[in-house]
């Protein structure tokens, strides 16, 4: 884009390098410092969460290495302990170590946040793809169906689903998938409709490309950018919903320490010890913030209009 005259006086022509979409996107993503910071936090969180769950003994690897305590071990004589070397974030009303519980909670939040996106991609992606690709009455039917789903407030529908499946990790998981696919289906449909009009797709159809190959080779790769961005922004939304449901007492149930459960417990004893809410609250906010930054970064990196 710009031409710069180097110190030696020779003109340094900025020749556009031949780069693929993903390499190009990665270069632009790296330029966004906040997004990179978010990515670092997320990777760190994932490592911490994995260590808290693997191997499956309470406390996982971190317990084995004596870095944290067991998340379920109660010690009622030591309730609401102030942070110390033994309990870096203090203990809760039952004397359970807060740090190990927060790390355990991270595994729940991250699993729900990230894995649900695949379910959403499966449901929303295929419905949107079918509606956009086939058009006609299939499109009409599917889109009217998404209209109906749209009439429900998200959280309300999740609440009803979770109530129907009973409070557990899996019911939240399925409920989130069954509710949040709508936005993605609309997006994919729009993408497919606009790509279908492109010349290269017409050319592919005229040269006798099979529908499957058309979808796999043209429609999917070309609509991938916005889909990835939407799914990334879906992660903090899913994390929020799980925490909110658990906070309302409808989601994950104690003693499983999800962040929402910890905040609910802490809120009940807020006058005794506000720390009980502050730490899990910061954990939720930090995770959601990191994913938002990464989403922002991805959006700018994958948007072809931003390419220089």
């Amino acid at each position, binding site marked *: 884009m710009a031409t710069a005259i180097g110190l030696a006086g020779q003109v340094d022509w900025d020749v556009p390098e031949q780069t693929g979409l993903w390499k190009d996107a990665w270069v632009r993503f790296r330029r966004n410092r906040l997004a990179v910071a978010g990515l670092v936090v997320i990777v760190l969180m994932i490592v911490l969460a994995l260590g808290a769950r693997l191997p499956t003994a309470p406390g996982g690897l971190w317990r084995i290495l004596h870095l944290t305590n067991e998340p379920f071990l109660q010690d009622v004589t030591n309730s609401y302990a102030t942070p110390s070397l033994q309990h870096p974030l203090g203990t809760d009303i039952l004397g359970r170590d807060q740090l190990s519980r927060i790390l355990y909670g991270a595994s729940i939040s991250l699993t729900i946040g990230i894995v649900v996106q695949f379910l959403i991609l499966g449901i929303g992606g295929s419905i949107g793809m079918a509606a956009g690709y086939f058009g006609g009455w299939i499109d009409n039917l599917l889109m009217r169906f998404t209209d*109906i789903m749209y009439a429900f407030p998200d959280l309300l529908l999740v609440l009803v689903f979770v109530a129907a499946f009973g409070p557990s990790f899996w019911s939240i998981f399925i409920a989130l998938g069954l509710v949040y696919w709508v936005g993605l289906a609309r997006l994919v449909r729009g993408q497919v409709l606009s790509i279908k009009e492109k010349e290269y797709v017409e050319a592919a159809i005229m040269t006798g490309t099979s529908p499957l190959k058309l979808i796999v080779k043209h429609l999917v790769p070309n609509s991938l950018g916005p889909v990835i961005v939407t799914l990334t922004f879906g992660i903090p939304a899913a994390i929020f919903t799980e925490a*909110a449901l658990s906070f309302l007492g409808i989601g994950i149930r104690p003693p499983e320490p999800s962040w929402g459960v910890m905040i609910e417990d802490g809120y009940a004893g807020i006058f005794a010890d506000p720390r009980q809410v502050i730490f899990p609250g910061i954990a939720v906010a930090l995770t959601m913030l990191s994913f938002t930054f990464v989403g922002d970064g991805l959006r700018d990196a994958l948007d072809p209009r931003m390419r220089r």
Partner: protein
Amino acid sequence: MSVTAGAPFRRGAPSFLSWIPTGRGTTLTIYIVKRLLWMIPVLFFVIVITFVLMHLAPGSPWDREGRQLSPQVVENLNIKYGLDKPLWQQFVIYVWGVIHFDFGDSLRQPGQHVSDLILVSWPYTFTLGAVTFILLVPIGIGLGVIAALRQNSLVDYTALGLATAAASTPNFVVGIFLIIIFALGMNKLTGGTFYFPTGGMPSPFNPFQVELIMPVITLGALPTAYIARLTRSSTLDTLRQDFVRTAWAKGLKARLVVVRHVLKNSLIPVVTALGPTFAFLITGSFITETLFSIPGIGRTFVSSIAARDYTVILGTTILFALLIALVNLVVDVLYVFIDPRVRLTE
């Protein structure tokens, strides 16, 4: 060359209906009627889905903590409320009732009509939501526009940073932090003489009560941040357009460029977003109401789900769905007036 009062619409806006050709007015009426009719199947399916899910849920309204009701009592209760009938029959009876605006009696609060329960709790939620919405729109749009006009300045970074932080902090965390700082902290600091009350909302209709301050911030932080971010990016987009450059080039005053050329265009996506924002204010209030013990409809809904109070669940769900459908309709119709390029073709 002066900006008329109704600049966002068209010049001479007070009689803004008169510029619509008669043909278009008819199209609009037909469009609205169509959309209203379309709500009927939507609401029907909302009832179907909620009804099925509710009855799929394990447990019944007669479950009690501790000592259970005797089987005979449960049987009698089932007969009294028609829960002994086959599911499809219950469904038909319920829908027939809804058509006649009869939402049945609460199963857990004997003798209370669902509509009465809703009428009692609705004003709390409405006041909370309305106050939040009225504050949210100017603050969100204002922050967004200022940030965009001063792109990459300190103001921009501060506004954007605040908005991003608020957009990714769950509202119950915001609420709890507010309680810790302004109720617990201030209570301690001032020795109990001055602090914000944490709970309740003594008068449902009064928008000026100190009890509302923290709930409104809790409920409004996220949507305000969302609107601010949206306004900022949309205004930035518009600022880069050719017609804005032309407006600057022909020497228009900054205020005119901004108000007439930039805002008029950049606020279009913001208006669309206000519909879902309103929906968020209703659903978001579940948490805010629980947090601040406000006896609004969100709490009624959450507790009715926990209690398997079938009729209350259905009644509130229908109300929410209806409100959202109506708000979306209003937004879509407003859209026609704000953006003359939009034609009603559906």
